[in-house]
């Protein structure tokens, strides 16, 4: 009798657990490069695509592109296990924003989370994102102007090994560095080009602002995706843009997928991308 009870209840519990974890999305594609602007031909595509497994009010891909910055004195060589706030206070760019937005009651809207890096084993990213606040406060033409997102890379031993800061946009200096951007929803594909004229869609002018690609009233079975094809070489990048947006040893490219405002971890990625041109 007891054995039967155990078997039946175990089977039901496992069944329930499987049912409760049923995903809202089926991941079709999630890929990003390890390096860019290197002499050897390598993949130059950032891509995410999902199929809705149920009707959704809203689905959003949030892109962020961060550039490597310097670690302040005293950060490297110290183990930081549970000291996110202390660590972040060392960066005026982060601290100034945290303080200001707290002062106007927006502290709950600042996203701070730790996530594993997609293409580096045993390293995690401490992400601080003000992108949603910026997209709410500033007009869309402002999307490329201010730092909105910050990240620290922490290795398995707890040492901070990298600092990144950047923008809420699909890719850094997208108007110069993207060859193509493609947004797909339910079989409808829109392609954006660097120098689109006439009715063509332009990377600089027409892509959704603040790196947020949103879809509403998504139906079960709809396929939604974004693909970015990065240029092979760094040509035609103006000096000021090069110095502020491109001259970095590495980038962090982020895509986070939200289904009805809930982060879908399986369809989100955090890549460290080596900038080959800067290394040369």
């Amino acid at each position, binding site marked *: 009798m007891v054995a*039967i009870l155990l078997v039946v209840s175990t089977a039901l519990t496992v*069944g329930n657990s499987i049912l409760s974890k049923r995903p809202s999305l089926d991941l079709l594609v999630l890929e990003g490069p390890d390096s860019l602007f290197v002499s050897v031909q390598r993949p130059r595509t950032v891509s995410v695509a999902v199929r809705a497994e149920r009707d959704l009010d809203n689905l959003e891909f949030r892109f962020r592109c961060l550039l490597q910055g310097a670690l302040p004195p005293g950060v490297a060589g110290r183990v930081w296990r549970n000291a996110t706030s202390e660590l972040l206070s060392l960066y005026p760019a982060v601290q*100034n924003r945290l303080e200001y937005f707290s002062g*106007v*009651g927006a502290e709950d809207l600042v996203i701070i989370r730790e996530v594993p890096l997609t293409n580096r084993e045993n390293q995690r990213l401490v992400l601080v994102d003000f992108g949603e606040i910026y997209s709410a406060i500033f007009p869309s033409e*402002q999307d490329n102007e201010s*730092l909105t997102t910050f990240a620290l890379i922490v290795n398995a031993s707890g040492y901070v090994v990298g600092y990144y800061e950047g923008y809420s946009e699909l890719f850094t200096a997208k108007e110069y560095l993207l060859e193509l951007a493609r947004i797909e929803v339910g079989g409808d594909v829109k392609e954006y080009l660097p120098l689109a004229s006439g009715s063509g869609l332009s990377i600089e002018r027409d892509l959704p602002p603040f790196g947020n690609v949103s879809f509403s009233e998504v139906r079960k079975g709809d396929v939604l995706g974004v693909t970015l094809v990065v240029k092979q070489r760094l040509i035609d990048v103006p000096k000021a843009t090069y110095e502020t947006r491109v001259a970095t040893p590495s980038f962090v490219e982020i895509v986070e997928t939200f289904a*009805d*405002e*809930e982060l879908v971890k399986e369809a989100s990625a955090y890549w460290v991308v080596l900038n080959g041109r800067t290394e040369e």
Partner: protein
Amino acid sequence: MVRGLVVTSALLAFLVIPQFAAGGIAPVILVGCFDGQAYPLSYMANYTQEVAKLVQEYTRERYGESIQVAAIGDWSFLLDALTFPNVIGAVIALNVREGGELYLSELRMEEVVSSFEGGLGLVGIQGLGYSPYCGRLSREVFPLDANLSAPGRLIRVPVTTIRHTHQRATINLINQDAPDQFDAADGALVYRKPVAGGGWWAPEEGNMTVLYVCKTVSGYDNVPSIVAYENKEGRSVTFAGLKHTDGSGKYEKDLNYYNHSLGIPAVRELLGESLVWAVQPFAEGDGVEARMEASSGFFAEKLEPLFEKMKMAEKAEARLKARVTARMLLLSGASVVAVLAIAYIGFVRG
């Protein structure tokens, strides 16, 4: 641009959610000194803190404790914050450096000009008035339209500094208690060439007053060194000098270097009084209360959709939990029935 929406926001103040009650948002004055010698702009934390203390001292004395003074170490956030409606003023220093350059987009300049004219009190030091760096800001907000930078006289005793002598040109509220003449440590002073023989270059709009002039090492003796300006709702004071840089490049290590200027009573008096005058329309009287109410309305209107999204996510999670609980109860019930059925068939009937 953002400030332009304040009036609309004030009308929407009834939407204010608790976080944005007017009592909770304070008027803010920003202080950011980017006098470092490296490119890109290098923030000078120690110097900024000293200037912030000075600003706090003067604003507290004149306007009470309600005004917050915030040291800002990130150039792009400083530009962002100048457009926020509860920011009433700022002291900003930029270091003009030979061969250096500063990226300031047209959009950013447009925003600062628009915020200034909409109602900001600004004090700009050195590079802000230099047109190759700051373009239209150097004409429409910090009206020096400078295109050259001149070093001062080298003084070796008691400490090595580079100095300019400033001579009063006009007496007004800002400099009424300051001396007719004073020396300050000016690593360099920016000016517009050709220097006008009589009078000074002035922007087409607004009201500019030259408070002090000085003589450059190249022999021009009529160069505006401190200038007050009013246009539309904005007020500014521009210091053409006060470049806090020494030739040794040990700036960051020499904690006392900036005190060569900030230690001079006339410089403290003029910096403090300049800020007090520049923010006066927004720091006292009914104006400040109305502005903070409008700020509350602005942030409520802008951020409410995000709070709604957050609530939506919480509700979705709660719904999911409720579904899981209901399913668990259902399955538990089913399991009891199944066990009883198996027990009945296997043990009772069998």
